[in-house]
C-alpha cells in the first residue's frame, strides 16, 4: 500500500508510544501521531495539552493546543499551571512522553526553536519555547519531529531552547534537571535513538529506499549507523486508521 512520508513519520512516532503513556501533545503532526497511537497500539494512552485539557475527546483535529476542539469532552479543563505541574510532578510526570518539534537539534538532542543567528539580532526568529523547554526539562521520554536537513542538525545550536542531554552523560543531573531526556528523533529519512552510555544520537531506522549514507549527508555531525535497520512500512491497518479515523479531512497529513 502506498503511503506518504508524513504518514510514515506519523506511524513511526505512534509506535514509540506505549499503552498507559500520558502523551504531551503539540499541534500538527505530533497531535496526529498521538491520536494514531491511541487508535492503533496504545488504546489506554492519554493525550493532554499544555493549555490544561486532559484526555480530550478530539472528534476533530485541533489546529492549536488552545483550539476549542481540545476542550470538548475532556476529563478536565484547567490551565497552564496545572498542565505543566502534571509533568514536573514526580508521580504523574514519570508517565509522560512528550512530542516536540524544533528548528535545530544537536547530537545530544538539545533543541532550538528560538532563532537562527545571534539571539539579539537574529537572521530568523522563530516562535520561541512555548512549553517545549518545560516538557524537555521535566519528562522522562521525548519524541522529536525534524526535517532532515544539514542546517537543522548542526554541530552547534544557535540557541539552546529545550534541554536534551546537554553536553553528555550526567549533564542533566549536574544542571539540576530531572533525569530522562529525548528518546527518538523522527525525520523524513529515518529514526534516531540515543546511546544509553554516551547519550549521543545514533541511527536506529532508515526508511525504505533511503540509505544510511543519505542520512549522514543531511547532517552536520556524524552519527553511528552500525545499529541501523530498515524501518517497517506502515501496515494497511495503520494507514486505514490514520486516513479514515484520525485525519479524514487531511488537515495535517
Amino acid at each position, binding site marked *: 500500500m502506498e503511503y506518504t512520508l508524513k504518514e510514515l513519520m506519523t506511524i513511526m512516532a505512534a509506535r514509540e508510544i506505549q499503552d498507559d503513556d500520558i502523551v504531551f501533545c503539540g499541534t500538527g503532526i505530533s497531535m496526529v501521531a498521538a491520536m494514531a497511537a491511541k487508535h492503533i497500539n496504545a488504546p489506554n494512552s492519554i493525550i493532554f495539552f499544555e493549555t490544561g485539557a486532559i484526555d480530550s475527546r478530539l472528534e476533530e483535529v485541533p489546529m492549536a493546543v488552545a483550539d476549542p476542539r481540545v476542550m470538548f469532552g475532556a476529563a478536565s479543563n484547567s490551565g497552564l499551571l496545572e498542565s505543566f505541574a502534571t509533568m514536573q510532578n514526580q508521580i504523574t510526570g514519570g508517565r509522560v512522553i512528550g512530542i516536540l518539534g524544533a528548528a535545530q537539534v544537536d547530537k545530544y538532542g538539545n533543541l532550538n526553536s528560538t532563532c537562527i543567528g545571534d*539571539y539579539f539580532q537574529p537572521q530568523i526568529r522563530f516562535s520561541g519555547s512555548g512549553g517545549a*523547554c518545560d516538557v524537555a*526539562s521535566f519528562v522522562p521520554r521525548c519524541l522529536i519531529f525534524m526535517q532532515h536537513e544539514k542546517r537543522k542538525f548542526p554541530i552547534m545550536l544557535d540557541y539552546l531552547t529545550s534541554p536534551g542531554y546537554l553536553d553528555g552523560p550526567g549533564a542533566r543531573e549536574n544542571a539540576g534537571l530531572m533525569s530522562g531526556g529525548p528518546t527518538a528523533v523522527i525525520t523524513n529519512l529515518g529514526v534516531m535513538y540515543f546511546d544509553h552510555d554516551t547519550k549521543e544520537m545514533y541511527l536506529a531506522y532508515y526508511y525504505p529506499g533511503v540509505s544510511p549514507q543519505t542520512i549522514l549527508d543531511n547532517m552536520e555531525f556524524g552519527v553511528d549507523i552500525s545499529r541501523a535497520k530498515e524501518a517497517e512500512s506502515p501496515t494497511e491497518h495503520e494507514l486505514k486508521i490514520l486516513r479514515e479515523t484520525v485525519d479524514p479531512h487531511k488537515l495535517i497529513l
Partner: protein
Amino acid sequence: MSINRDKVMTLKDAIKTYVTDGCHISIGGFTVSRNPMAAVFEIMRQRKRNLHCYAHSNGTGIDELVGGGCISKLEIAYGGNGKAAPTCIRFKSAIQNREILFEDYSNYQMSLRFHAGAMGVPFIATRSGLGTDILKKWGFSEQMRSKDPKLPDKKIEIIDNPFNGWAGASKVVLVPAINPDITIIHVQKADKYGTCRIEGLNFADVDQVKASRNVIVTCEEIVDTDTLREKPEYNQIPFIHVSAVVHVQYGAYPSACYNYYDYDPKYLSQTSKFAKDDRLYEEYLKKFVYGVKDHQELLNLIEKEQLKNISADKRTGYATGLDRR
C-alpha cells in the same frame, strides 16, 4: 474607590482609563482562543505607545499589538498561533528588525511568574530551563534592570535546594513575580461587579488577573449576579480583582470563545498574508483597525455568512465541520 460597585463602562473609556503609554500590560487567552481582541484593536486605535507586555502564548493579540507599534518591550514564551495560521509574523519581523526589546521565557515560567504575582511572593521555584539559553541570555541588561524599578534586578536566579535534595531536586530556578499595571481578559460571562465565569480552558487568565493592579474584563454576556452565584465554585474570578467590565459580543474575534464561536480561519490566514508585507499590513490596519470606530464596525466588514459559519455548536462548543484549510 469601592470594589463593590457597578463597573460597567464602554471599551473606549476602559482603555483610556487603564491603559496608559508605557504601562505594563498582559492580556488573556492563548494562541487562537479568548484573546481580548476588541480591547487589543481599541488599544491600537487609541495609538497607545511604549507598552511593556508580558505574554505566555497570546498569539493573535500580541501580534496585532506589535504590528500596531504599541509595544516597545516584550517578555514572551511563544509568538505563534499553532497550525491555525502562519505564526506571529509581525512579532518575528519586529525582532529581526530590532524594533522591540524582548526577553524569552517558557510557558511554564511565565505562568509561574503570574502565579507568584497573584500570590504576593517575589518568586516561585521550578526545574524548567536549567542548562538552557533561556536562563543564560537576558534580553534586558543588568544595567537597564537596575535603573527600572518596575523590573526585577535579575531575569532569573539559580539556587541550590536548601532542603538538601528534597523532592529529588539538587538545584532550582527561581523566576520573579509579575505584577502588571493592567490585565485585560475576555470571558464568556461576567456580572456588573466583575465576577467572571470562564468556560472551557482558563489558560493563565486567573493568575494574570489576580497579579494585576487593574483589570479590564470584556465579556460576551453580562449576567445577573444571582445567577452566577447559584454555583460560586464555577466563578474563577471574584469581583474584588476587577476594575472595569465591558460588554462586547464577539470580543475575542477573530480568536475563539468556547461555547460562543470558533476562531475564524479565513480572517486569520488573510491577516497573516497581509502581515508578511509591510505595505499590505498597513492597508489591513487602515481598513480593519483604524478605519472602524469600534469592534462592531470591524464585525460589519466580515461576511455575515462567515460569522454564521464560526458560531459554536451547542454540543461541542465549537463550529463542527468548519472549513479550516
